């Protein structure tokens, strides 16, 4: 008895240490074997085992925490000894009984705590294995432990995705395949591991699959061996380079194999029938390889590379160690223009992440920005080399605009959050409705913006230290890592393969000798962008330009900038750069001008790039030598500049500045100056062949806007019509477009864009001019692609978009019902075209069904403008599973829009059902994010849709319904936030009332007779009870079959142990734990939680109290079942006692029991009633 007590103490002490010092690992994995010996496509199940080789780094290691989600675990052995384990996943259901809370603040903190409680970065995990005491001694000597875990997955909802088309034939013929996926570290969804990017180990991976299938995984394929019955093959992979578990992946399917003709160690895989597309798509990959290896002066770190193209991919590109999984929709034939650059970009992205992200991993989550930044940065270099400087600068501007917009909207993206002291009180991002402490709590959009900002910051660093040094740093990091990777396991060598912010900065200062501290502080440690307002005056007497630059650093998402800023002034005598210091209070800057205004002299004007051009200077101010001024032309600050200069200056800038960014800025500025001069400048740019095509495309839209503003004074044919005619129509008959020839991509893009922009023109009645509409209809009519070597699907799709753009609201007389008879004649023509296009798609589908997508959009627009009756049924049929994903998304977008416009609760329900049930993860994610962007109502507006049932449904969705997909859960949180905000939804009864309700529930919990009453108060209560039932069912069903005499240190005992711990571990999530578990209470997660709830609403402390009884109810509930089986355990409601009991029994007749238990284990037991299985299988989300 005394012995047992001591054990408990030790155990608890260990708990304390591990909980308090989150970042100290007490073990180190060095090697892991993953063996999946059966994959059943019919049942969508997987059986396998893992074996981890672990070096304890502390003495007395008696508990091993591993990450594992949704796996059913049959047995765990440590060095061939059965080990008891518990399996607890607090993220399955974030908030337990506090159903009345319903405020996002509360959820957010609970979710963060839940994720933190199992965060592998902090040494936590869902699976807690108790090391058998026999091995403790061994652990003392720091010997190796081998942890062997048998597991299975049944219909996994996350981690692995099965695609099984429902047709005739065997699985290979049907093209069934399975692949791993996940957002950030999600490997734990498909096998137990240490699911952290910072835990490296070597790997041996074995997959036994049907003989007609191929298993592609990380590392080198050593051999493929038939099984004895010759019906299956086993693929043996070895990955000798230390790799983190999240970088391990798997894809199994009847793939077609293509060995890269240029690099034989690179192999490509695609689904059956797509091989020709694969060949074409991959014919380019070797150039990307060469590029990266050249700039990094470093060989590709792995000995092989595999690309797999799968259907229903989670994201377009996901990189894993030595392999990448792509969406099959990236494949294209040689006829497709538009997809080609997109796909190549994706390939380049995947490859850059091979170096930084897979090979070099991150030290902790807060170092993620370095990896994303570097991979994004070298990807940018690739873009610059392949697509040219114009494209690169355009892309940088685009990304800058994106991040600026996002930060100003949401209040900032923080790249390197410092969690000093681990106190959530100083939350670095109070403006966000989610925590950025863990990757799994981030909203997807935020994460995308995070990546965007990261690579922009890398570019800023490059600006500071030069590209040469930058590449040297990367090379240094890579060579250190590759030296480390070839070493056998040594305690600290492998850490060279992990990149941290400080390591990176140190490397930079070593290589460049420059201090980039301020830069890092400004952009990395701080969130927000800079907002400049600039204006100027020219002082003729002093010949000085008086520039005023103001900043807005008070509104959300902004920060103050102090430091240098570059200003470029184009004068008559040339272009001059000035570096100004932005200081605290200096707003005005005097810049001396070089030239006097002497425009009478006909002289060429030198530009920045040395070119000298003739300009017509008649437009400019006679007194000023200034042509145009640019602030921060190199985009070396993350900023938004609003600069005021005269229209003629913008026009000069557009015409003569050679930088595409300047041209684009000028175009957007000219929108405000609808004058004939602007029109001329834009038209000239449009016609100029040398001008970057994206600038020209942008000019089209600007021209349309200007034309609309100048409607009354506009002369000549509609804007762009004569231009289009000249460029693309026949000389002899100008109303007929030439037969398509897209060999010149620039004119192709222009040809596509112009009609779309023209359709935006409006006449006095605010209608699209008849002339324009007929022109577009003629383009469609005379479109002839027979002589073209490229597909015209994108062009036709854009012509439909043009028709869509031409639509204007119908004149609605007294709300009459829209019928065929009162259809406007123009609309009738449009509708006929759309009908024909849509029907032709069924017979001759276009690439990626672009035409269907455009048609669906057009139909929704017709509905929205009241030309045809608004009806979602068509879209709903196109949104069904089984259509091409682009079509589905377009259809869903229309349904989402319908839901908002018509406030249809039925459609909203339909959408939410799809979020819960659709097989495609991407579609689920897309629905929620579209709902978030185009919400049926917002927190600011009243809506009949906003009701208690909806709140409950969404709450349930994010609380438990989306536990298998981090991204989806965050989407749900986002959507909830958009609808209801951070506080309690207004449609719910007042908090006071909820408080009463809570009180009642408390009573109900204590006294079961009141239960029904509590449930009767609202649907909420009833729902909760259901949810509870869902949890308890497996528990109650489980141990009753056991014999009574079986004793403690058995698997059975481990189950008791588990239940106890379930309770114990659940508590951090469920709020306050009163008394019973002091250890866990001080784990650093509770206090802030309470604080938050306190902040959000005064009534919350009470619910917190209520939690305790409910938790104990939980405990009681299952213990009741234990009573049947274990009379001995009668008094074990307090878990300490239970421990005691267990250890006591263990000491008693250890050996005997173990014998017996092993026997039984070998029998059915192992496969029937593991607690883990019970819990993972019947999670609350499933039980409903």
């Amino acid at each position: 008895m005394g012995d047992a007590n001591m054990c408990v103490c030790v155990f608890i002490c260990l708990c304390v240490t591990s909980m308090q010092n989150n970042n100290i690992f007490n073990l180190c994995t060095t090697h892991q074997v993953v063996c999946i010996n059966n994959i059943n496509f019919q049942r969508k199940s997987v059986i396998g085992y893992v074996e981890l080789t672990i070096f304890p780094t502390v003495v007395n290691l008696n508990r091993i925490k591993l990450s594992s989600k949704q796996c059913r675990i049959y047995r765990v052995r440590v060095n061939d000894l059965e080990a008891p384990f518990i399996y607890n996943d607090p993220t399955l259901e974030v908030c337990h009984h506090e159903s009345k809370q319903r405020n996002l603040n509360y959820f957010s903190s609970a979710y963060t705590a839940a994720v933190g409680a199992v965060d592998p970065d902090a040494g936590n995990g869902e699976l807690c294995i108790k090391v058998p005491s026999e091995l403790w001694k061994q652990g003392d000597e720091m010997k190796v432990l081998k942890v062997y875990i048998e597991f299975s997955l049944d219909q996994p909802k996350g981690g692995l995705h099965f695609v099984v088309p429902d047709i005739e034939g065997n699985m290979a013929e049907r093209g069934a395949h399975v692949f791993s996926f996940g957002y950030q570290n999600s490997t734990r969804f498909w096998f137990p591991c240490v699911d952290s990017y910072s835990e490296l180990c070597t790997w041996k991976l074995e997959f036994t699959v049907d003989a007609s299938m191929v298993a592609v995984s990380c590392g080198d394929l050593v051999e493929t061996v038939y099984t004895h019955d010759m019906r299956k093959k086993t693929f043996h992979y070895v990955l000798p380079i230390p790799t983190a578990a999240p970088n391990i992946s798997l894809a199994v399917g009847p793939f077609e194999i293509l060995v890269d003709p240029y690099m034989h160690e690179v192999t490509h895989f695609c689904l059956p029938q797509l091989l020709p597309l694969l060949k074409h798509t991959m014919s380019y990959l070797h150039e990307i390889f060469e590029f990266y290896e050249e700039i990094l002066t470093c060989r590709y770190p792995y000995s092989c590379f595999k690309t797999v193209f799968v259907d229903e991919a989670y994201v377009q590109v996901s990189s894993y160690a030595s392999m990448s999984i792509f969406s099959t929709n990236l494949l294209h034939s040689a006829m497709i223009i538009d997809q080609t650059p997109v796909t190549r970009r994706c390939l380049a992205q995947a490859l850059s992440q091979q170096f930084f992200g897979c090979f070099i991993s991150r030290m902790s989550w807060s170092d993620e920005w370095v990896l994303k930044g570097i991979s994004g940065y070298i990807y940018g270099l690739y873009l610059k080399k392949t697509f040219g400087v114009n494209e690169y600068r355009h892309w940088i501007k685009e990304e800058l605009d994106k991040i600026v917009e996002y930060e100003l909207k949401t209040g900032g993206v923080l790249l390197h959050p410092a969690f000093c002291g681990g106190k959530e009180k100083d939350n670095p991002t109070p403006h966000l409705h989610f925590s950025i402490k863990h990757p799994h709590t981030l909203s997807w959009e935020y994460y995308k913006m995070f990546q965007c900002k990261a690579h922009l910051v890398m570019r800023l660093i490059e600006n500071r230290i030069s590209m040469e040094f930058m590449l040297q740093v990367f090379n240094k990091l890579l060579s250190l890592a590759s030296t480390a990777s070839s070493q056998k396991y040594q305690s600290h060598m492998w850490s060279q393969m992990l990149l941290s912010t400080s390591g990176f900065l140190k490397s930079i200062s070593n290589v460049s000798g420059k201090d980039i501290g301020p830069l890092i502080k400004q952009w990395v440690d701080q969130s927000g962008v800079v907002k400049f307002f600039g204006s100027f005056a020219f002082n003729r007497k002093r010949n000085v330009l008086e520039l005023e630059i103001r900043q807005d650093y008070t509104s959300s998402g902004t920060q103050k900038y102090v430091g240098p800023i570059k200003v470029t002034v184009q004068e008559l005598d040339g272009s001059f750069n000035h570096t100004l210091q932005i200081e605290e209070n200096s707003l005005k800057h005097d810049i001396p001008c070089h030239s006097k205004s002497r425009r009478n002299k006909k002289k060429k004007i030198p530009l920045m790039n040395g070119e000298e051009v003739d300009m017509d200077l008649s437009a400019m101010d006679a007194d000023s030598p200034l042509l145009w001024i640019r602030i921060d032309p190199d985009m070396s600050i993350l900023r938004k500049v609003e600069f005021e200069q005269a229209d003629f200056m913008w026009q000069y800038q557009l015409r003569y500045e050679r930088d595409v960014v300047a041209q684009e800025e000028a175009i957007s500025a000219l929108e405000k100056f609808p004058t004939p001069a602007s029109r001329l400048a834009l038209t000239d740019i449009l016609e100029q062949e040398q001008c970057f095509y994206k600038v020209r495309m942008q000019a089209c839209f600007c021209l349309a806007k200007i034309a609309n503003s100048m409607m009354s004074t506009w002369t000549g044919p509609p804007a762009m019509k004569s231009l289009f005619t000249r460029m693309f129509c026949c000389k002899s008959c100008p109303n007929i477009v030439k037969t398509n020839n897209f060999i010149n991509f620039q004119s192709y893009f222009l040809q596509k864009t112009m009609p779309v922009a023209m359709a935006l023109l409006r006449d006095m009645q605010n209608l699209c001019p008849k002339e324009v509409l007929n022109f577009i209809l003629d383009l469609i009519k005379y479109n002839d692609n027979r002589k073209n070597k490229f597909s015209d699907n994108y062009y036709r799709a854009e012509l439909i978009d043009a028709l869509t753009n031409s639509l204007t609201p119908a004149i609605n007389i007294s709300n009459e019902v829209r019928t065929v008879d009162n259809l406007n004649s123009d609309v009738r023509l449009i509708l006929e075209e759309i009908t024909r296009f849509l029907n032709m798609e069924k017979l001759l589908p276009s690439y990626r069904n672009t035409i269907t997508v455009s048609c669906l959009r057009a139909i929704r627009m017709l509905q929205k403008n009241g030309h045809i009756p608004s009806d979602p049924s068509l879209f709903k049929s196109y949104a069904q599973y089984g259509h091409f994903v682009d079509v589905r998304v377009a259809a869903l977008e229309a349904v989402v829009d319908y839901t908002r416009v018509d406030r249809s609760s039925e459609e909203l329900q339909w959408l939410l059902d799809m979020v819960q049930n659709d097989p495609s993860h991407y579609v689920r994610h897309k629905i929620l994010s579209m709902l978030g962007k185009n919400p049926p109502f917002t927190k600011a507006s009243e809506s009949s849709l906003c009701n208690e049932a909806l709140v409950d449904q969404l709450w349930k969705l994010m609380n438990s319904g989306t536990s298998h997909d981090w991204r989806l859960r965050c989407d749900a949180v986002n959507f909830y936030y958009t609808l209801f905000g951070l506080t309690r939804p207004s449609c719910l009864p007042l908090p006071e009332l909820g408080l009463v309700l809570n009180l009642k529930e408390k009573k109900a919990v204590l006294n079961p007779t009141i239960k029904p009453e509590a449930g009767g108060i609202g649907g909420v209560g009833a729902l909760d009870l259901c949810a509870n039932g869902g949890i308890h069912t497996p528990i109650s069903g489980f141990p009753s079959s056991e014999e009574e005499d079986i004793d403690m240190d058995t698997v059975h005992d481990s189950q008791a142990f588990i239940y106890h711990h379930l309770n114990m571990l659940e508590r951090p999530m469920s709020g306050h734990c009163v008394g019973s578990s002091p250890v866990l209470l001080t784990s650093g997660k509770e206090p802030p939680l309470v604080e938050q709830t306190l902040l959000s609403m005064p009534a919350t402390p009470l619910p917190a109290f209520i939690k305790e009884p409910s938790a104990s109810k939980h405990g009681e509930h299952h213990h009741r079942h234990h009573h049947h089986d274990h009379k001995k355990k009668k008094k074990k409601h307090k878990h300490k006692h239970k421990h005691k009991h267990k250890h006591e029994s263990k000491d008693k007749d250890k050996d005997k029991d173990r014998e017996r238990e092993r026997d039984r284990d070998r029998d059915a037991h192992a496969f029937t009633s593991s607690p883990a299985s019970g819990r993972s299988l019947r999670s609350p989300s499933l039980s409903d």
Partner: protein
Amino acid sequence: MADPASVGSGSLSASGTRSGSGKTTTSPAENYYLARRRTLQVVVSSLLTECGFESAEKAAVESLTEMIQSYISEVGRSAKSYCEHTARSTPTLSDVVVTLIEMGFNVDTLPTYAKRSQRMVITAPPVTNSPVVPKALAAGQKRVHPPYIPSHLPDFPDPHTYIKTPTFREPVSDYQVLREKAASQRRDVERALTRFMAKTGETQSLFKDDITAFPLIAARPSSIPYLNALLPSELELQTLEETDSSEQDDQTDNENAPSNTVTDEAGADKENSVLPPGGVVPAVKPSEETVIDNPYLRPVKKPKVRRKK
């Protein structure tokens, strides 16, 4: 009253003669035959006169004519057979001689007989209408045999049977009209086709009041949606082939390796038994650059026998 009767009989006889004359003049071939027959009759009659007959019954003359006709026909037939037997198409004198001998005729007597003094010379029958070859098929000039074709080979058929005779109208060369036509034709075809599909299958409608107004072919989910969406349609492939074939070249170069891999996968069993374990199957033809050593191209190994513990 007798008048009409006589008239009637007269008309009857007239019709009879007409029918008789009709018989003689019905067809040219028959006519020709009759003319010959008449000639033969003259010959027989003159021979009879030569032999001293003063008169003969018509029936007797007919019989003799029949006999001589048969005899001559037989000579002709037989002579033709002989000539064909020697692979010729035209009988020669010797053929006729052999025939006559074969028929038991003493040929030696023929010259003297032919030169007898009291012979009568009969003028050639006045062949008025030569045998008419049905003219309908003859069109244009038949080509004569070129020198290297032996003349006995059959003549060329009528030129119209083998010569291409381009017949065309003046093509519409107006570009605008052409495009117009092509466009409207395509549109009509498409519309008709989609209408047909819509009529025969399930449809969706945009209007509730008139579901036939703009019929949309109902969206039908497919089990492998990406195939249709990604693979170019046959029509597109066709146009691609038409427009460009040069680009295909580099594609075909690469085709060998993967096609081999597929067979390799499938035929791994067989190859395995032949090849030593671990041996690399020549995945690429030796002529095609070096052998690709890719783990996925290697054959699948057989399970080790000594696996059991």
